[in-house]
Each structure stands twice: as structure tokens, then as C-alpha cells.
């Protein structure tokens, strides 16, 4: 059983009351010199609490104010492998304390030491992310996490999932949930969530019983942005939730990076908008490592390419081309071209973008 300090125990106790909203909890904590003052001397705060939420909640709090109740709370959390880090804990990330709406408590599952990694970097994207962006996101997440960056992201499909998949191997991944640990959303990522719990870290500012509600996701995004020293926006349409993360990053004075998109790609409009406003245009991991002055060495694996393969590779370089166009430009027959493209794909030099389109990485 982990031993929590008096302060931590007080925060755990305070957070267990679902009737108290975040702002009231913060206000109560701010009125106390030390958090444990609340548990030691609850009547001092009675007028404040009754003013906020009424007498019944206060009575409820008073009734459950005893050490064995707090022990039970901690035991329940521990039974579910949940560790608690509060704003007053030693291992609470400094970067998060800087933001105005700093969470008072983080429920954690997994490797909590990741919270103390200085180099936290968030990668977020919308649920609709085009294949090439997915692939690049995976690559960047992998390369950064291999270079001692800890990747911070959510759990949504698309951009978030790609970032997780890239970073999961190295274990340096933090996924921030917008709801309690008793829930999984999207259901599709249940297995992925389990993997992150094993290899990386999953955190949430909500008690496990909190069910996911739409408004909680943008609020959660302040933690993603707040934890990290930089944020990369990999995709986002006009009305994407990713906007909030980027906006928080700017508000908290963090670096903002974004993938560039070509004209007319609806899933990238927001990225381009942020670049216009000053976000750092990011094409590869070098743009990020370069910004932080980190020496990043790409290990170039060179392949021996046949004549046809290098011809097709050169045609595709930097373009997204339809198969018909590659056929025309290369002068190959369809049955000659398909094996060549397959082989380039296996060698991970080109990428299928769907609808018979190909591009280089």
C-alpha cells in the first residue's frame, strides 16, 4: 500500500465528493493554508461549503470525515491499480502547475515516473486524419520517444491513436483521459488502452466513476497542452476539438507545431490556419528536434533498388500520384508496375493513400 502524506489524503478525500465541482474544490483548497487543514478542521470551511453546494453535501462530508473512510478510498483505488498524484505531491509535474486551471489531482495507471520527464511533447490530431498524416505521425512519435521525449496525447481515433502506436514501443507515452477509469471511449481502443497502462501511463483528473460527456474533452485538452513543452497538431478540420489543445498551448506560452496541408484538404484546414498565425511548420521530426537544439540522427537504411523501382520512386518523390499517372509517366505495363509498387511499399519507401493513389514518405 502506498503511503500518502496528510495533504494528499485530504485531497483524495475532498475529490471523492462528486457533488463538489472543480472550481469549488479549488476555492476550498485555496482558503486553506495546507490541504490537511480541511480534514483537521472542517467546521472552519462550513460556511464556504454550504454557500457553494448546500447543507446536505456538507453534512455528508462531515459524516464521512474519518481516517478509515479515507483508507477505504485509497484501498479501492489500489485494488484497481490506480495511483494518485495530487497538486501537492512531490512528483506532480511542474509544467502543469504553471497553468491557471491546474488540476488538483491526477489519477494514474502505469508508470508515473513519466510525469517527471522534462521533455514532454504532445501530439494531437482529429479523428479524421488522412493516411499520409497518420504515417508521419506514427514516425514522428516513434522517433521522438526514442530520443527521450515523452509523448502526451488523448485516446481518440485518428491522430491520437497514431501517436500512441508510434510511441508505445519505447513506453514513453502518456494518454490523458477525459473521464474516469471505469470507462473506455472510444470502445475500439480498449486493447490499446490496456497496452498503454502496461507500458506507458494513463492519467485522468476525474474519479473512476466519472462517465464521459462531450464537454469534458475540450477541458481535458488543457492538461495535454499544459503537460508538454510543445504541441504538434497533425490534423484538424474547421470544427475539430484539436483546436482547443492548440489554443491552450498558445495560451500557456508553449511551442506549437503543425503539419502543412495542401489546398482543399478539409482535414487540414486548421493546421494551415495555425501556421498562418505562427505555428512552426513541421514536415519531419527534424523540425521539432531542430527547434529544441537536439542532435537527431536519422538512420538511413539504403535499399538496392532495381531500375524500375528507382524510376517509380523518383516519379513519386514528393508527389501524390494516381496509379494511372504513374503508368503514363513510367511507361510500364500494369502487371509490371504493380509488383514494383508492392515492393517499394514493403521496403517502406512509398505509401498507399487509398483510391489507388501512392506517395513517398
Amino acid at each position, binding site marked *: 500500500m502506498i503511503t500518502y502524506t496528510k495533504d494528499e489524503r485530504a485531497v483524495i478525500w475532498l475529490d471523492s465528493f462528486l457533488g463538489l465541482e472543480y472550481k469549488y474544490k479549488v476555492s476550498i483548497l485555496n482558503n486553506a493554508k495546507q490541504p490537511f487543514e480541511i480534514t483537521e478542521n472542517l467546521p472552519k470551511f462550513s460556511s464556504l461549503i454550504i454557500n457553494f453546494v448546500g447543507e446536505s453535501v456538507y453534512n455528508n462530508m462531515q459524516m464521512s470525515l474519518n481516517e478509515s473512510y479515507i483508507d477505504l478510498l485509497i484501498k479501492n483505488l489500489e485494488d484497481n491499480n490506480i495511483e494518485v498524484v495530487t497538486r501537492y505531491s512531490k512528483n506532480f509535474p511542474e509544467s502543469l502547475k504553471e497553468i491557471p486551471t491546474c488540476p488538483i489531482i491526477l489519477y494514474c495507471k502505469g508508470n508515473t515516473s513519466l510525469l517527471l520527464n522534462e521533455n514532454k511533447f504532445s501530439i494531437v490530431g482529429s*479523428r*479524421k486524419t488522412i*493516411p499520409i498524416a*497518420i504515417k508521419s505521425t506514427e514516425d514522428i512519435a516513434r522517433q521522438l520517444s526514442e530520443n527521450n521525449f515523452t509523448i502526451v496525447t488523448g485516446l481518440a*481515433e*485518428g491522430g491520437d491513436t497514431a501517436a500512441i502506436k508510434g510511441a508505445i514501443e519505447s513506453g514513453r507515452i502518456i494518454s490523458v483521459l477525459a473521464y474516469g477509469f471505469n470507462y473506455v471511449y*472510444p470502445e*475500439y481502443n480498449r486493447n490499446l488502452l490496456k497496452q498503454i497502462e502496461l507500458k506507458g501511463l494513463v492519467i485522468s483528473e476525474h474519479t473512476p466513476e466519472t462517465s464521459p460527456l462531450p464537454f469534458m474533452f475540450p477541458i481535458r485538452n488543457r492538461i495535454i497542452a499544459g503537460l508538454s513543452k510543445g504541441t504538434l497538431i497533425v490534423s484538424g478540420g474547421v470544427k475539430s476539438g484539436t483546436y482547443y489543445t492548440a489554443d491552450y498551448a498558445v495560451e500557456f506560452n508553449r511551442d506549437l507545431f503543425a503539419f502543412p496541408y495542401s489546398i482543399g484538404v*478539409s482535414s487540414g484546414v486548421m493546421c494551415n490556419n495555425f501556421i498562418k498565425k505562427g505555428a512552426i511548420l513541421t514536415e519531419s521530426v527534424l523540425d521539432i528536434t531542430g527547434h529544441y537544439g537536439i542532435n537527431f540522427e536519422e538512420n538511413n537504411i539504403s535499399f538496392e533498388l532495381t531500375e524500375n523501382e528507382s524510376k517509380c520512386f523518383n516519379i513519386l518523390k514528393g508527389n501524390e500520384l*494516381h*496509379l*494511372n499517372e504513374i*503508368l503514363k509517366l513510367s511507361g510500364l505495363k*500494369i*502487371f*509490371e508496375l*504493380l*509488383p*514494383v*509498387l*508492392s*515492393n517499394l*511499399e*514493403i*521496403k*517502406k519507401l512509398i505509401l*498507399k*493513400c*487509398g*483510391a*489507388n*493513389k501512392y506517395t513517398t514518405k
Partner: protein
Amino acid sequence: MLAKTYSFTLLGLEGKIIEIEADINSGIPSYELVGLADTSVRESRERIRSALKNSGKTFPIKKITVNLAPADLKKEGAYLDLAIAIAILKASQQILSNENFLDYVFLGELALDGTLRPLNGILPILISAKSQGFKNFIIPKQNEREASFIEGIDVYSAESLKQVCNHIQKIELINKTLFNKYEKSNKEQKYNFDMRFVKGQPVAKRAIEIAVSGGHNILLIGPPGTGKTMLARCIPTIMPDMSFDEALEVTKIHSVAGTLNEDGIMRIRPFRTPHHTSTTVSMCGGGNKHIRPGEISLAHNGVLFLDEMPEYSRSTLEALRQPLEDGVISISRANSNAVYPANFILCASMNPCPCGNFGSSDKECNCKASEIRRYRAKISGPLLDRIDLQVEVDSIKYDDLISDESSESSIDVKKRVDNVRKIQRERFINNKINTNSDMSEREIKEFCKLSKESEKTLKNAFECLKLSARARSRIIKVARTIADLDFSDNINERHILEAVSYRSLDNSSI
């Protein structure tokens, strides 16, 4: 007096011999039909009574007992009308003939005026009867064409009961039906579609050629209005001709189902397009009393085209799995069971997502990822594994549509297909299979040896493209066909690589 005749009834594709005994005694006039006769057989009494009267004979006003043996087999349909009528005529001594009728098999339904009506399933009956040693057959005139393709039997086709009576009494003989040698469809087939008219779509066209050459199943995925259906409609134009055995198999099924044309034999491979509201029974075959072949059996040796595959009911699609694997379907009902062959090429088409625009360059897809997954999940993994070629068909640009640049015509493609089919026939001469797609694991080991390099390429492909392990033998079979198209005995790296490129759903971003 007692008289005996033979007739046949159908059980699935098997003809079952029925022995008909008629006995006429003096006593209170009655007509007793025994031997598990179905309603349609029982009703034969009224047809026979009128037919006899209108053919210048009389229905004996005596105690008539007709027995249908074997007694435990349920008899259905009007197959037995003629045989019962002849037995009654003989028993009442209205036919005086020394000839032993037991050489003959009588088949035909009687009309009230004594003419013979055509029957479904004459061909399978004749084939079964021939194998049981019968040589002489009397059948309705309209079934003559169908029967003429069987060698080594004497078929007499009659128009009326009167003609039959005259023939067996040797008063006026019917001419023997001449044997028709099966020839491949010699007249140029007129199709509304031709590969020549399909603009663009090089991958899809190539994939269709491979599918037809090796008998592989194919799935076309693409936004609405990109020509998936048109591509599928081109398949019949490049299908190889059928051998006599194949044609006979197909004709048997269509004869039972009653969908035979006046040509009497199926010369063109069937192309069946059941609508997506089709029920499982209509697709697989079934029925309460007489088990009819379903769409998959009617598509035997041909193509079953399922347009907008996810719209079909789940259970209907899942029911296809076992026939796709075995090439036959065995249908069991409380009263009877039947085995019908169902070796077909499955050609299916679907949109990439519910709105249809996923992956499209000019239109935006409004579907959520979960919606797309749900849509695609309608086609289960095991079913998808049985589809060897998954091809994306994409939207055509307007310029391509009006360009005059015409591609290969169906006739040229068909020549290549015919060649590859010939290679396969020679390869599998001792293996009882026809196409590469029919190969079992044992045959794959025998005919699809991979060089070390090819093996390595395949392994790489699996790791990089995250293919499902079950796809391995499918890929090898397709690679075999591609190698055949290339006139190569060995399966080389490039054949494997091309085969891998047709697994676009396995290797998709969603």
C-alpha cells in the same frame, strides 16, 4: 389384369426410378393410388381420366389400383402421368402389344386433351436412368432438344398420348431423336458490354482477368458511379468456353430449376445477379417438399455477382462461406436432402463507406471512422479471407471518360484467359479440380513451389503490410495464376508481389 411401367422422379440432381403397377379388378368402380403420392401425383387421376377420353380411349369403370414403388420414397410432381396412363391402358387391355414395356421409361405430364407437357429436370433423369441401364425413353416433344445431347440412348419424343400408344403398339413409329454433338457456342455472342468500353481502371481490369483465369473471388471497392457494376458485367464477355462435362453439369442444375432456354443446353457460363433482398434460402437453395437449387448452384461454373455486398443480410452472406470453400452445398430438410454443386466465382462490389466518398479525391466523406468500421464489418473476416482479390475502383476523370484511347477488347482478353485455363486443365489432369483457386493445401505444396527468394519476399510482405495469416495460401494461389498468365512455371518474386497488391482491405488505413 396387372401391368407394369417405369418412370423416374427427381431427388436433388439424382433421378430415382419409380415402378408403376396398375391392377384392374371387377368390383365397385374406384381408383386407388398407393405409395406415398404427393398431391400433384394424386391429382393425376383427373388429368389421366380426361386425357384417356380425349385420346379415344376409355377410363375403365372398374376397381383400379395403382401402386408406386418404392413405397417409402415420396413422389412429387407430374413426372408420372404418362407412365400411369400407359399402365392403366395396358391393364385394361386397351393397348394390345406384345412388346415388353419394361424396356421403356415414360416421362411426361398429361394435359386434359391428351397432349404431353414438358417437364423440368429431364436431363438429370436421363443421365441417371442411362447409368442404371435403361435405353429407351419416351419424353414430351418440348424436352427433345435437351435430351438430344446424351449419347447412347434412344429417345422418342411424343406430342400426345395417342402418339405414344401408336408407337408402342407399332402402329405408327415415332422417329428417334438424333444425337446432337455438343459444340462450343460458335455464333458470336452479343454482349452489351465490352472491356474495350471501360475507361481507365487498369488495376480492376487486370484483377478481373486474373480472377476469371484462375477462378478466384473478387471484390470491387469504390465510390458510387465509378463503374463497378459495368466492370462486373464485362466478366461474362471474357469467360472461357465450357467443356461438355461442365456444360452438362450446369444444364442439369438449370434443367431442375426450369430455367433452361430453348437451346436445351447451357453453352454460356451463367452470370447470376440476385438482388440484395434475396433470402438465404433463395441464395443457397431449399424449399419445403422439392428442394430447389439456389442462386449459388445456378451460378455453378459461372459467376455470382453481389452488387452492394454489405446490403445483403448478414446470414445470407455467412451462408456462402461453406460453399465457397467446398464447391458444393448440401441442403437438409425434414423430408429430404439434396446436394447441389456450387462452384462459382464470387464477384462482389461495395462502397468504401456508407456515404461512398471515402478516399475520393474530389468529394468529402462525412462518415465517422466508427461508422465506416461498422459498414465494413458487415462483411465478416472469414468471408473476406475467401475473397482473393480486393481491388479499389476509383472515380474517373471527365477527360478519361471522353478519351478515344480504347483499350483491349474482351475478345483479346478472353484468348489469354482460355490459354491459362488450358494450362490449368493440363496441370490438374489427375487432381479432379479445374482451376488454381480450387487447390487444397496438398496441391499448393505440389504445384506452387516457392523459391527461397519468393518465400522471403512473401514473409516480408506479411510483416510490413500486416496481412492476416489466413491470407497466405490465397496469395499463393493468386500468384500461381499470375505466373500462368506470364507463362512461367515457377512463381517468381514479381508474381508474389503483384498478388500481395490485391489485398487492399487487409492493408487499409481504417
